[in-house]
């Protein structure tokens, strides 16, 4: 992967994100409040303390179980820098030609710089809803941000990336929905890599008040045929008591990009949270999902669909942390593997001693469409309470020859039968987005991976 990055804009030593002066200049230019500057410095100290992050990139500790099966080449930061200029070209409309998405508000970033904004309606604003670019939110609502920004510890192995993210992340969206406010439309944030060799640090912070209802979509893509990019993103969802949060995200960066992304979800009492992630792009993408069932009776649904092709590697680590009693969580991760691609699914359900009557499920299904592809599965359980029901399942197989035979006996061509079965495999996840515009978009993107 470092090959692709070196081919892009020639690296100049002074812009390397691992350098002290680059960080300091960045920090000085941002003119952030003291509490935030301290969080940045703290993160930067972690970046530096870890000798393994250097100008050459981020090394991966082979002995760390949390990186088991990952490609051990490390992540190169070579030639990756902040974009110098605002992107002036035209960004694609991902919903063009299909159903338009009904948005409550929209934020668009290109190369980590805000390029377009559709503010929320006056009605929503009057109800107390806040949907702002991160920088503006920090200035206008410091108390809310101070309480929640960069606050959650994750232990899924990506600490180095998260430190870098915390040191540099300024492009982001902040959503606050007060208690008892229901917003049926979708809040939409799009992050584009538009210039080759750009570094992205997208951040999403969603705070859903008690009994509120929220829909959110994050999209990460490469516009304008931008080649290499390096993304270290993070999103945090904090769902209050009885909140119903439905977050969707899709990653469709160019095949030369590197992507690290962390989703952290905290569910309050009786909260009902769904998170659907679709992974299509990047040469190498690591996705970590940490969910904490913090309130009794919370219900969480985690879904992911990954379509890997060429020599892509998708490394997915999930953690369902049951802290409170009577909570339920249900995970379904589906991977389809083409060509010489590779997927890793490592999931963990942990039931803490106090979490009685937990009902947790975890399922990983891998569809091998090429003998050269490799699927690794590490489904795990750590149970410390006896009054629970926890199960997991992992399967890896090719398309069922009998199903293919049946379809062909009904007169379908081999190709059509194959596509029908493969797209059927995706549909289980796509249907769950419960939004026609988005489902249509995902189908289009998924099929795009088979076009070649």
């Amino acid at each position, binding site marked *: 992967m470092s090959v692709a990055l070196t081919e892009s804009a020639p690296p100049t030593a002074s812009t390397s994100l691992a350098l002290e002066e680059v960080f300091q200049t960045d920090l000085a230019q941002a003119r952030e409040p003291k509490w935030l500057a301290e969080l940045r410095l703290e993160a930067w100290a972690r970046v530096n303390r870890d000798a393994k992050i250097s100008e050459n990139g981020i090394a991966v500790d082979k002995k760390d179980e949390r990186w088991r099966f990952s490609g051990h080449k490390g992540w190169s930061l070579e030639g990756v820098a902040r974009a110098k200029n605002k992107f002036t070209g035209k960004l694609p409309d991902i919903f063009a030609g299909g159903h338009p998405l009904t948005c409550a508000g929209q934020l668009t970033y290109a190369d980590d710089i805000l390029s377009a904004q559709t503010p929320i309606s006056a009605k929503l604003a009057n109800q107390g809803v806040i949907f702002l670019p991160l920088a503006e939110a920090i200035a206008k609502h410091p108390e809310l941000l101070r309480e929640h920004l960069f606050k959650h510890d994750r232990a899924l192995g990506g600490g180095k990336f998260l430190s870098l993210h915390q040191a540099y992340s300024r492009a982001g969206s902040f959503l606050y929905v007060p208690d008892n406010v229901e917003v049926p439309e979708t809040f939409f944030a799009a992050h584009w890599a538009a210039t080759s060799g750009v570094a992205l640090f997208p951040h999403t912070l969603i705070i859903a008040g008690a009994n509120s209802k929220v829909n959110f979509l994050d999209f990460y893509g490469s516009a304008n045929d931008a080649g290499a990019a390096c993304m270290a993103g993070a999103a945090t969802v904090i769902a209050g008591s009885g909140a119903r949060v439905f977050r969707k995200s899709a990653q469709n960066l160019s095949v030369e990009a590197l992507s690290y992304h962390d989703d952290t979800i905290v569910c309050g009492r009786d909260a009902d949270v769904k998170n659907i992630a679709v992974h299509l792009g990047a040469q190498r993408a690591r996705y970590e999902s940490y969910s904490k069932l913090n309130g009794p009776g919370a219900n969480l649904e985690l879904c992911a669909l990954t379509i890997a092709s060429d020599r892509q590697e998708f490394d997915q680590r999930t953690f369902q942390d049951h802290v409170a009693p009577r909570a339920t969580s249900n995970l379904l991760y589906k991977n389809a593997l083409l060509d010489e691609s590779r997927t890793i699914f490592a999931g963990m359900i942990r039931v803490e001693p106090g979490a009685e009557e937990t009902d947790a499920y975890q399922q990983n299904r891998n569809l091998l469409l090429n003998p050269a592809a490799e699927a690794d599965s590490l489904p795990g359980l750590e149970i410390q309470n*006896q009054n629970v029901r926890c199960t997991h399942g992992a399967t890896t197989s*090719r398309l069922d020859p009998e199903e293919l035979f049946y379809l062909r006996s009904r007169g379908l061509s081999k190709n059509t039968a194959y596509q029908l079965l493969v797209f059927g495999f995706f549909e289980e996840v796509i249907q769950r987005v419960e939004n026609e515009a988005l489902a249509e978009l995902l189908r289009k993107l998924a099929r795009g991976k088979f076009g070649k």
Partner: protein
Amino acid sequence: MDQATQLEIDREKGNFRYETDYAFDAGVGLSPATIDYIAEVKGEAPWVREFRHKALNIFESKPMPTHWATKDLEAINFSKIRYYLSQGQKPSRSWDDVPVDIKKTFERLGIPEQERKFLAGVEAQFDSEAAYSRMKEGLSKLGVIFVGPTEGLKEHEEIFRPWFGKVIPTGDNKFSALNSAVFSGGSFIYVPKGVKVKQPLQAYFRINAENFGQFERTLIIADEGAEVTYMEGCTAPKFETATLHSAVVELVALKGAKIQYITVQNWSNNVFNLVTKRGLAHEESEIRWIDCNIGSRLTMKYPGVILKGRRARGEVLSIALANDGQHQDTGAKMIHAADETTSNIIAKSISVGKGRSTYRGLVQIPKHLKNCKNNTECDALLINANSRTDTYPAITVRGEGNSVQHEASVSKVSAEQIFYMRSRGLSEAAAMSLSVNGFINDLVREFPMEYSVELKRLIELEMEGSVG
């Protein structure tokens, strides 16, 4: 409950110790001199001595696997362990020659009775050397070899040397290296072409001396079309300080052969039981591990099968029971290395009190293979509020037409079942015991009869007092 009293006596069966005057004692601690001493006493060939020395170097250079395994391993003090003890070198051939003290130990373990129950051969190991070893003459006539490793490597070098240390290389892990350095005792078995040994071969292992590590080495070779079942049972008296048991067991099933290896492990609760077991299955052969872990402080054992030949089949059936102060870290490895190979893993664990049971699994199907299948099921049962269970499988699949399924579940004993049985007049403890036996019943059925009875009793004993 009458039965319970009866069983309580059984439980103390293994908890006794005789003062034994050890004729050979390698002293405390591990150094090249220890190795030389062992090799000297055994009169081993130079290549064996060299093998041991090499292994010692590897053992010393390897770090403890604590980056994934429990930190409890750090409690082992290698410099305080006795690596070799023996009462004499030649295994006695008839029961009368066995020293009276040792006979007493075995009588309490019921070995002579076992033999009367027409077991094909009994090899009882008392600390390092086989104290009693005899095989039914019929088997010897068929050409079956059933000896200890010293005799095996000396008298039958041409048979055992080609496979010795080949299935589990010395450097496989820290403890296989330790075993390769100081191994003593164990069984070397060869079953000639086409010979089907009808009765199971059996060995009992005991650790008697305090601070004594036991490092038996077993190598079983089933030649083309041969069939053999081997059973081992382990008991150790209770001691104040921790003891170490670190065995290496290698199985080789040549074309069309079948090997079944059965273990009932009931070490006392201060034994570290760190065992490497692996089989090499050639074309159309079958290797089956049946593994029950009930005793020990910490067991780390993942029997594996390397499916090397076309249509080979591997199976691991595992039962683990972890009570207070115990950690059963068990599992299975299936390494597919040929087309159309199949493997099956069924693991059931029960955690009682503060016990912790862990399943760790590895399934590998590399890219050049076709039509391989694996099925894995792990079920965990938690009895008390602070019992703990973990599952850590790792599955890698490539290639064409391969399919793998893994399923695991964690549950408690159903309150409705207990209620139903109580309404029928059973005590809560009896109902619980019945329910637990039901949980493992489909696996226990696979065992030879004597073992399934013994196992059910052991589990009942462990469960005692955990309910109510």
